[in-house]
């Protein structure tokens, strides 16, 4: 018997649905959008194909990781890079897990059978991704020579400012208006931003001797294509109602800015500052995937329905040039508070940066010289002591308020309901004002540590190695001359929350 045609089976499967013609259910989650009952899943996902396909994908990923273990690939991966994975991979795991909940959220909200099927597939995918990334971290933990930072799991990221940034970025995946969930997750993050992250970043990994990340991420991204199609299907469904269009434009504006603040920073930092070999300049990757593919191809075709490119696109382009330099510098400036090591930049790195970003050395060279000079504990100094004040974190995106440049930040500080807040940019200011309640519940990262000795903060964060005294964080990659809590305590450095005064 010949296998029934995909189209026919898919069409038939769509008929297993409820018509709700005798009772209208209350919406499970409120939405301000009018959602027509139509929608399309171009992948025509059916379990018979899905399971076989995903099983083969996993077999290949774990087969490749198995080979990496056998051939000790981790020994040949640049330590500078793997240290970056200590915070980068958990940040992405946060995204995957929040997306599991997000897909579940959408299954409950979307009455359209085809789209619901697509989201069901997505939920399974996001569980897969969470597991794959956790497996990758386990691979690093077991095979990389310095596992401190991988060994306390997601708790490491959870306590760190990068963790707040990740949670804030990915929270819109499962809160608020369900259509906006689709806009944030499927359209903005998965169509625009996962491409540079999950497709282009593997190139950097491979250039730095880390095949495991490349294998894992390229496989993760193969599921992403169906998520992009889910987003597209939901968007096309919504543009049919003209009343939805202003809401869609506002949602795109908000999520494009916010995701840019977290993703462009994260990928820019990791690909250029946590690498020894750099196959590309981040800005070029951004131009290709975000401007040409997402804006110029995908969004461009939606113009006729009234959808517009985010008005802040020129500001995004402006920020992309500088943001990641500022963020990398900020992370190095607060190095004792991290759970990974930061290798000082060398002359060779300086040359690359100057070529890719003329003027880089004049602006940033001094800081990195200082960082290198303070990397041995005998220096008795840390960069934090040289800052006139600690930068506040943006109440919306939780990036440090040194954006786009630490010497020319576009920070705004204001009072809201009797409390002082900072935002990093006009874009985040606008987002805050759209709905402050979303953002005011989260404490600014410095708040709980105000007035505490830095050594006590590090202990409270749990960023200490198994010997109970050596910091997980180190301003160099050496096996000896590592900083301890005593070295920090000797500095008598007291945290001052910059927003409290």
């Amino acid at each position: 018997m010949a296998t029934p045609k995909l189209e026919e089976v898919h069409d038939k499967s769509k008929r297993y649905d409820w018509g709700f013609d005798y009772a209208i259910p209350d919406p499970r989650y409120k939405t301000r959008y009018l959602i027509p009952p139509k929608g399309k899943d171009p992948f025509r996902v059916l379990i018979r194909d899905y399971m076989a396909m995903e099983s083969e994908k996993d077999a290949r990923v774990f087969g490749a990781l198995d080979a990496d273990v056998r051939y000790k690939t981790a020994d040949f991966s640049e330590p500078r890079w793997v240290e970056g994975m200590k915070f980068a991979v958990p940040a992405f795991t946060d995204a995957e897990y929040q997306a599991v909940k997000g897909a579940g959220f959408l299954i409950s909200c979307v009455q359209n059978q085809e789209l619901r099927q697509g989201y069901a597939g997505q939920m399974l995918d996001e569980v897969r991704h969470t597991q794959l990334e956790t497996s990758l971290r386990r691979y690093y933990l077991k095979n990389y020579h310095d596992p401190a930072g991988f060994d306390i799991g997601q708790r490491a990221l959870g306590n760190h400012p990068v963790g707040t940034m990740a949670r804030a970025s990915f929270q819109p995946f499962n809160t608020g208006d369900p259509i906006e969930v689709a806009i944030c997750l499927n359209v903005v993050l998965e169509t625009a931003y996962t491409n540079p992250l999950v497709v282009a970043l593997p190139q950097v990994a491979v250039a730095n001797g880390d095949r495991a990340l490349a294998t894992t991420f390229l496989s993760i991204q193969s599921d992403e294509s169906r998520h992009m199609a889910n987003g597209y299907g939901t968007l096309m469904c919504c543009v049919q109602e003209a009343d939805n269009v202003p809401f869609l434009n506002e949602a795109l504006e908000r999520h494009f800015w916010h995701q840019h603040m977290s993703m462009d920073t994260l990928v820019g930092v990791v690909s250029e500052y946590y690498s020894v070999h750099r196959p590309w300049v981040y800005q070029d990757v951004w131009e290709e995937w975000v401007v040409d593919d997402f804006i110029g191809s995908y969004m461009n075709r939606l113009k006729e329905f009234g959808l517009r490119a985010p008005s802040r696109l020129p500001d995004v382009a402006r920020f992309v040039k500088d943001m990641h330099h500022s963020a990398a510098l900020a992370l190095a400036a607060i190095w004792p508070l991290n759970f990974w090591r930061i290798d000082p930049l060398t002359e060779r790195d300086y040359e690359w940066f100057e070529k890719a970003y003329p003027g880089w050395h004049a602006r940033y060279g001094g800081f990195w010289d200082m960082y290198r000079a303070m990397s041995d504990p005998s220096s008795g100094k840390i960069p934090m002591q040289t800052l006139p004040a600690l930068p506040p974190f943006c109440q919306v995106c939780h990036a440090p308020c040194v954006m786009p440049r630490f010497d020319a930040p576009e920070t705004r500080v204001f009072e809201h309901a009797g409390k002082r807040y900072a935002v990093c940019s006009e874009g985040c200011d606008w987002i805050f004002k759209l709905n402050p309640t979303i953002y005011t519940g989260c404490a600014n990262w410095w708040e709980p540590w105000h007035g505490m000795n830095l050594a006590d903060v590090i202990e409270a964060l749990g960023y200490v190695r198994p010997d109970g005294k050596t910091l997980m964080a180190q301003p160099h990659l050496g096996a000896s001359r590592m900083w301890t809590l005593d070295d920090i305590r000797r500095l008598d450095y007291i945290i001052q929350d910059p927003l409290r005064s």
Partner: protein
Amino acid sequence: MAEPSRATRRMTDARETVGISLMGSEEAHAALALVRAEMPDAQITDNDCFYKIEREGLLELDMAKLGELLGRPITVPEFLVNMSSYYGRIVINDGILQIHSDILPARFRG
């Protein structure tokens, strides 16, 4: 997919590019061979661990032909194991994968 018109001899060249990213693998290499043979105007970029294939208007991969180049039968879901990303409008059918530049005109207004 230009509007056919007998009298029109103007050439309206515009970018309606579609693309597909394939992670390096045997199947990807067979796909590259198929693209080079059937769509020589397509652009292929080697990004070390993945390939990006881009073309104006339409990218089409016929699994029967790909299977011939690969040396074993292959279905679309099996092939999709290798697709990391794409841009354009994707259409999946039995034995064939297409990426179109036309957006689905799904408008019902008024």
